[in-house]
């Protein structure tokens, strides 16, 4: 019988927990998950719904507490301050030791800060950890205590924080450095639609606006912020810093594990030290995979790395090979999904051409990216219309061209039954712009269930 290893995973987020589950499926190895944040795994992306009152914190925990014992996954709450790779042991902040045979770093991210004056005042917070949620509940329980909040940073967490505060009728000023919301990722028309949607939700959206400093009152609490460009002072009680996240690796300073922005790993998710691996937000690929960034702070990629590394740890050494890119988000009431690659203005390859359709109600649109020479379908962004992941994954694998995608778009629709369908309008617009005469086909179950 194979020797049983003690696998220690630092971090109980989606990467670490997926890894643990898959190791357990494939082996009898001893597994310990270490976390300083919470006792049990919870869905970080759902923290917003706790503040908004949609759910209680316990609802964000995907597994009942008996799950861990039943699957003999040890949970340890504690903060690892140092890793001694030569003796294969962890040193906790209370100087407790824990030895491992294989160590997996899945410590995720922490909110990035850029050295603004006042960034550590009471009432300044990110929105990432459970502790941030508790902090927000303390400083912004209602609009009496928090008369206005200022959010700095126009990304996904920023707009979620805006929605959270808005749900409690707290006035929000949203400072976005770019000329339009998230336009480093979204094409212009989409980004502008979201701008309008933000404003329609009574958020004071300030584009092209940077934070200069955060001012303190006599108790060390936030009093106001100063705008870089105009010098305007905005009185507020809470400042949300949502200018991105960075790998949470400070505790590795004194270790011999090689790091850059994140923990450097090869395609097998192995670090420079034997038997030490890194997955999820904290891992940095030495060379980017396809169009992906070397550090991907995305739920799905964290999960995929966990799925993959479990194989390696259980003796089936396998490369991390993410499939076609996909992602999703929700901007207030507008759902967003993306499959394949659709670039914003920045960094868009010259061969990438876009077809854009938008609904007059200004809450639905799609953008299809394709190769202007070969017509190869590259990717799609959809807003307010749900699409079937399997279909787009298949079309990307089959290297379909844009005409095919337009023709069979109905197969991909994933909206609830009885929803209005827009394939006809989309096709008409595409035909007008491209001089084609494509007829939109009706949805076919047969095609939907034919595997690539």
């Amino acid at each position: 019988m194979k020797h049983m290893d003690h696998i220690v995973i630092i971090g109980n987020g989606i990467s670490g927990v997926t890894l643990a589950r898959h190791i357990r499926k494939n082996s009898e190895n001893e597994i310990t998950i270490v976390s300083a944040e919470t006792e049990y795994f919870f869905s970080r992306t759902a923290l917003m719904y706790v503040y908004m009152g949609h759910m209680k914190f316990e609802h964000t925990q995907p597994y009942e507490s008996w799950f861990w014992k039943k699957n003999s996954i040890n949970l340890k709450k504690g903060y690892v301050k140092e890793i001694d790779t030569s003796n294969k042991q962890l040193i906790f902040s209370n100087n407790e030791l824990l030895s491992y045979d294989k160590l997996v770093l899945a410590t995720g991210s922490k909110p990035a800060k850029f050295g603004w004056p006042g960034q550590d005042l009471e009432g300044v917070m990110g929105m990432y950890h459970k502790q941030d949620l508790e902090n927000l509940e303390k400083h912004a329980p209602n609009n009496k205590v928090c008369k206005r909040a200022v959010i700095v940073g126009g990304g996904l967490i920023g707009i979620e924080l805006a929605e959270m505060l808005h749900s409690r009728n707290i006035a929000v000023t949203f400072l976005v450095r770019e000329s339009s919301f998230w336009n480093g990722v979204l094409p212009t028309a989409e980004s502008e639609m979201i701008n309008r949607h933000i404003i329609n939700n009574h958020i004071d959206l300030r584009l092209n606006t940077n934070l200069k400093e955060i001012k303190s009152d006599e108790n060390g609490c936030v009093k106001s912020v100063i705008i870089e460009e105009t010098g305007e002072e905005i009185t507020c009680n809470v400042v949300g810093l949502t200018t991105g996240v960075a790998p949470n690796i400070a505790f590795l300073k004194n270790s011999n594990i090689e790091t850059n922005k994140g923990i450097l790993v090869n395609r097998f998710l192995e670090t420079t030290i034997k038997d030490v691996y890194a997955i999820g937000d904290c891992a940095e690929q030495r060379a980017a995979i396809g169009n992906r960034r070397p550090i991907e702070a995305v739920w799905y990629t964290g999960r995929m790395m966990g799925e993959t590394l479990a194989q390696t740890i259980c003796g089936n050494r396998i490369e991390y090979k993410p499939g076609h890119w996909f992602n999703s988000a929700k901007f207030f009431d507008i759902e967003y999904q993306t499959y394949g690659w659709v670039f914003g203005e920045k960094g868009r390859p010259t061969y990438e051409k876009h077809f854009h359709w938008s609904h007059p109600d200004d809450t639905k649109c799609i953008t299809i990216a394709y190769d202007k020479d070969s017509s190869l379908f590259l990717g799609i962004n959809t807003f307010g219309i749900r699409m079937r992941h399997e279909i787009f994954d298949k079309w990307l694998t089959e290297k379909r061209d844009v005409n095919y995608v337009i023709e069979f778009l109905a197969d991909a629709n994933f909206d609830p039954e009885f929803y209005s369908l827009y394939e006809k309008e989309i096709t008409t617009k595409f035909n007008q712009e491209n001089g084609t005469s494509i007829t939109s086909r009706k949805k076919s179950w047969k095609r939907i269930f034919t595997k690539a």
Partner: protein
Amino acid sequence: MKILKQAGFVIFLIGLSIFTGTLFTGTFNLTSSELASFVTEKGYKNELILDELTKAVVTTEELTIFEFSNRVRKAYKTSNDHYDALIASFDADKNWDKKGEQYQYKIYGKPHTLSFELAKIAGKGPTKEHAGILWLLTFGLGIIGALLFILPNFVLLGKAGIKNNGIYLEASTNRGFIAWLVLVYLVSFYLVLYFMPDYVVNWTYILDPISKTLNGGLASQWFVYGFLYCIIMLVMASRMYIKYRHNKYQIIRTTSVLFFQIVFAFLIPEIMTSLNMPGYDFKNAFPLDYDFFFDWNLDSLRNSGGIGIFILVWGIVLTLIIVPVMVYFFGKRWYCSWVCGCGGLAETLGDPYRQHSDKSLNSWKLERWLIHFVLLFSLVMTLVTLYTYFTGTDSFLGINSQWIKDTYSFLIGAWFAGVIGTGFYPIFGNRVWCRFGCPLAAYLGFVQRFKSRFRITTNGGQCISCGNCSTYCEQGIDVRAYAQKGENIVRSSCVGCGICSAVCPRGVLKLENGPENGRINPTDILLGNDVDLMELINNK
């Protein structure tokens, strides 16, 4: 808008208070001729009950309904006690002929029902005399108040979309004191309605004019319940229409349950009654309609000519053919959340409480034991009933027919479906009956699980495990457990309300009917990862 909402709340409370207050109004007594004709009509063969009732309620005293009820029930008891004593003494004497004779003098039925029937004649007072005005002050104010409370949500909730804001921050929807107050009111309502109908006789006066118009007769407590049921569903449906105005599935589904409740469960039976037919709810399928095969119903249908036979055949065809075939094509949702009356109330009045269903594995285990037990119970009861009906015996397999019918009606029909099923909405969620008790749901569930085109499709790898779907599943299904594994949801208990799909922030869930092949799709590695790895693991 907020002021409008608050005003609506106050008006609703006033209406509710008057409604409740009417129960304590009116005076009750009978003249000897009224009583005599009642007793004749009832065909009581004993003199004692007439004497006892005369002593009790033929009076010029102005009795309250509670005093009246007390006296009637005492008279009932005195009379029956007398004959029971005779029976016992003849029994001791082994005088079987005499003993057998006494039974005809006993009065059967529930004391409160006798009291209700007498009170219906005996009542005097403002509620009875000014039914129209009282209707306006109770139902009228209640409806206006509730609508004023609900309609401003169109603006207050903000733009169309999922707005579950504050559900877990408010006492009414987070099992706070308001929820408990609502529970106490609902439970009391059901207890009185089922077991002490005479106490709500005043409510029937308010609806007598409407009842007369619809079916030609005076309102019973069941007419009050049916009417109230429709009104509550109508008003709370307006809340659904506002809350889910962006979601056509919810709009159409809500309209469907409303239609079937008002037309099929309420209007058609009333109109049938007015035409001297047996009032029948054509959508109420056995075994939810547990007394369909009771002897009194079979007799009534057999004596109603062509329509009776049609109903008998329809009832059997509905359960044996229509229900399972429809479940095959559309899932059990076609019944449970599109047609059923219990489902209709759960999806309207109960919607604010849907998040309270227990999602734990243990509650799932309890669910399977309980609901299948009730199904078995209803089938055994029906078997015994039918056997005794056709053979003329009292019992079958050692089970007394009357006993098992009474036990089922009391435990399952009244307590489980009513008192617990609806009364506990604010604490245990809106589908307690449908999930743990309904024998029809159990039957539909078998079909849905093993032979159906229905499933909730999980959208590849898009799930972020947020838990909105599980939280808002009224049937306590841990939807996320499937979604985060990329597995379709094919559970016997799913009623297809579609809320999991509605609240999903990432477009992961879709209710759909499609080919059976591929309906269940176990996966370990989710879509989006390495194709080789997915194949290696998922096809292992």
